[in-house]
């Protein structure tokens, strides 16, 4: 993990002129670590141990963690269990709609290496090939205590400014996109334009563009405004 960070050079951000910037950074980091809205995408079995962790017995809200409903509002994406290819597409869409800083937690062994479904033709095995993962909570399935311990570890990481996978996604987009394309086909495209976002927020890295993004840009259509029609056309069957 540590050498990976050095390669990426996450900390090479320009110094800001504002003398209070440092104080603000500290404050936001402090608050970020104490207020985490999570989107628990029930991709698999692990979702069954989240309600106990959230409800009266283990009560995640003590730690400032609460469930949210839509990706726009969420900070953490909990991928709870094996990821079928069909779900993986939705996870990527969900992840890209969240606003940064955002964190991904892979729960259950299946997100690490496919778990007991390693033989299965339908599930993707390694989550971190397609999305940057901040934290894995292994187990089949991890107990609520383990989930909470994992979230605590993530909180520590956020407070110490170590959880920066979302930057990795922008800066190494080519790598992630390549893996996604290998699974979903070369014409894979999401509604979110990561390249434009990276440019806009100044997160372009050395590896943001590459041969996979070139492939994407060749067929990418910019996201147009939704039409306002009187009737929805029938779907081609």
């Amino acid at each position, binding site marked *: 993990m540590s050498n990976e960070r050095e390669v990426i050079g996450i900390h090479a951000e320009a110094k800001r002129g504002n003398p209070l910037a440092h104080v603000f950074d500290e*404050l*936001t980091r402090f*608050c*970020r670590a*104490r*207020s985490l*809205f999570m989107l628990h995408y029930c991709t698999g079995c692990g979702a069954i141990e989240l309600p106990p962790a959230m*409800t*009266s*017995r283990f*009560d995640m*809200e*003590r730690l*400032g963690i*609460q469930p949210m*409903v*839509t*990706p*726009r*509002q*969420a*900070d953490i994406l909990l991928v709870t269990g094996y990821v079928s290819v069909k779900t993986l597409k939705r996870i990527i869409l969900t992840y890209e*709609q*969240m*606003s*940064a*800083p955002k964190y991904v937690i892979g729960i259950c062994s299946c997100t690490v290496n496919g778990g007991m479904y390693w033989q299965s033709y339908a599930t993707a095995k390694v989550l971190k090939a397609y999305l940057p993962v901040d934290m894995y909570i292994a187990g089949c399935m991890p107990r609520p205590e383990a989930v909470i311990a994992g979230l605590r570890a993530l909180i520590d990481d956020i407070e110490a400014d170590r959880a920066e996978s979302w930057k990795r996604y922008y800066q190494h987009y080519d790598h992630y996109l390549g893996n996604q394309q290998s699974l979903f086909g070369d014409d894979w495209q999401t509604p979110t334009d990561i390249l434009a*976002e990276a440019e806009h*927020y100044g997160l372009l890295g050395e590896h943001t563009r590459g041969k996979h993004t070139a492939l994407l840009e060749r067929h990418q259509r910019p996201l147009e*405004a*939704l039409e306002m029609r009187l009737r929805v056309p029938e779907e081609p069957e």
Partner: protein
Amino acid sequence: MNLFLELLLMPLVAFLVGLLMVLMLRRIGAKLQRRVGPPFFQPLYDVVKLYAKRTQVSHGPIHDMGIVMAVGGYIAAETLLPVPGMDGLADKGGVIALAYMMMIPSLGLALGVGQCANPNGSIGISRALTAMLAYDVPFMLVIFGAAWVYGSTDLSEMIAQQQQGEWGVARMPLLALAGLLTLPALMGKQPFEIYVAPAEIATGPMVEMGGKFLGGLFVMQAFQLYTAGALYTTLFLGGGEHWLSFLPKIFLVVAIPMMIAYLFPRYRAEDMLRVMWKWPVLAALLGLAMVMK
């Protein structure tokens, strides 16, 4: 105290008290649900975190405007609500202007959410406007009755009358009851939480709101709770002589709807209309008849 300072301080105080009320809401829920609940500064952490998001997804200028209207409407409302030691614009606006100001946030939200082009959001906002329609009828009747009894629409005048004579709740008990029945709807809590409804429309108006937009809505919620509590206190519970008596009163007023909020599911939209237009309106009309006899 000079007016400019008051205009700055009143929303700020409202915001901080409102955050405390949000905390109280969550703590009450936690106690009823047999758990610990969030830490003391949790609402503040949430707001700061949301405003500190690095990427902010906006859906165009109207979207931004909507949130500004939502929060701005309440900030304007706070300056019209007299609190101990500060009158702000209360003598210039009065309760009618305040009631108008309390509608602006919903309209602003409607504008902003409409821009998101998310059907969940649109359904949510149409429900929010329905809810407003539902509670505004008894709410207006209550305000009208109070203004009739005090012979003035000036909130500071009302407070002065109550502090010299008896409280509004004694002079017009039925109107006070109608106001209390309207409060849960005004605060958008169960059983009238029709426009948030996560399991139905994925939190309705908030569905496309992230980062500072959601932060804005959190701030708005704090203002909303505070305004509801403070207005009710001003109308019926004698306002506040000083902060030590004012704060317990508004917290008590807000706590009552919260206590029942966690024990009920939500109504359907038309059921909310039915309920709101039946019992609170009935109580308010009877109360009006009594005070006007």
